[in-house]
């Protein structure tokens, strides 16, 4: 879109001949798209290891999508450590049903906690590698846009020198 306009003015500034229609009819007409605030802006290029994705997904839920899943600051802060109760020795006679049911409950809770932690770490890892890729692409986009702006400003400046303000 920008190139179209710029090449016209470039021609003008470089020679005196001007063709009223762009000679290259194959340039597509780009209608300027509305700027979505950060919502969805980026180019797709990420192919993560499917195993990693599965390991990052809640079983029974949908597959983990690193693009959508943002981690807020509080989620990322180092986990607060709970003081662990001291191990008290329990003689066999005291290990009644109540004891074992409590042990079972705690063992299950501990396993859930470990699994949840592992899942979260995997998710964060996948998301981090996705962000690395996305940031690189974004940096490229920024460079391109700076170039475009520079060219436009250059054209305007050169034009105004010759023909006065727009």
């Amino acid at each position, binding site marked *: 879109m920008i190139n179209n306009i710029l090449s016209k003015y470039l021609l003008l500034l470089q020679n005196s001949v001007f*063709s009223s229609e762009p000679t290259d009819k194959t340039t597509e007409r780009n209608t300027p798209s509305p700027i979505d605030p950060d919502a969805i802006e980026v180019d797709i290029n990420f192919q993560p290891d499917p195993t990693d994705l599965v390991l990052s997904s809640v079983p029974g839920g949908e597959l983990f999508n690193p693009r959508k899943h943002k981690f807020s600051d509080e989620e*990322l802060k180092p986990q607060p450590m709970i003081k662990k109760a001291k191990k008290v020795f329990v003689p066999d006679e005291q290990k009644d049903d109540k004891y074992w049911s409590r042990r079972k409950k705690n063992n299950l809770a501990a396993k859930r906690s470990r699994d949840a932690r592992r899942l979260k770490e995997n998710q964060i890892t996948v998301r981090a590698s996705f962000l690395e890729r996305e940031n690189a692409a974004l940096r490229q986009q920024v460079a391109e846009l700076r170039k475009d702006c520079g060219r436009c400003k250059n054209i305007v400046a050169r034009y105004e020198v010759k023909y006065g303000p727009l």
Partner: protein
Amino acid sequence: MAQGSDSNDTSYKSPSPGSRPSSSDDVKKVMRREKNRIAAQKSRMRQTQKADSLHLESENLEKENAALRKEVKQLTEEANYLSSVLSSHEPLCTGLAPQTPDLLYPTHQSSYHRQHISVPHYQR
């Protein structure tokens, strides 16, 4: 995860195996136990450190990502603005007025009139 105060907890000891536990067995057992305790502690420490650095890196990446998106938005708006300035000027532009039609539509009057009866002339 609960991890606070098990730094040197050796209050729990399992009963010794066999009917004649020798003191050397006990000593070996205790030594092995202690070694394992330290190894487990080290392993847990490594795990937390790894997680902490991952979280820090992740936080930075999120911030950088947000900043880049913002920049892309600003630059796109600027580029669109500049482009629209040029676009809207174009129809009004005196400098861009076309040159004599000769350059664009070279005329061979005689040949035209011989071949065609009526020739529409496009003038701008």
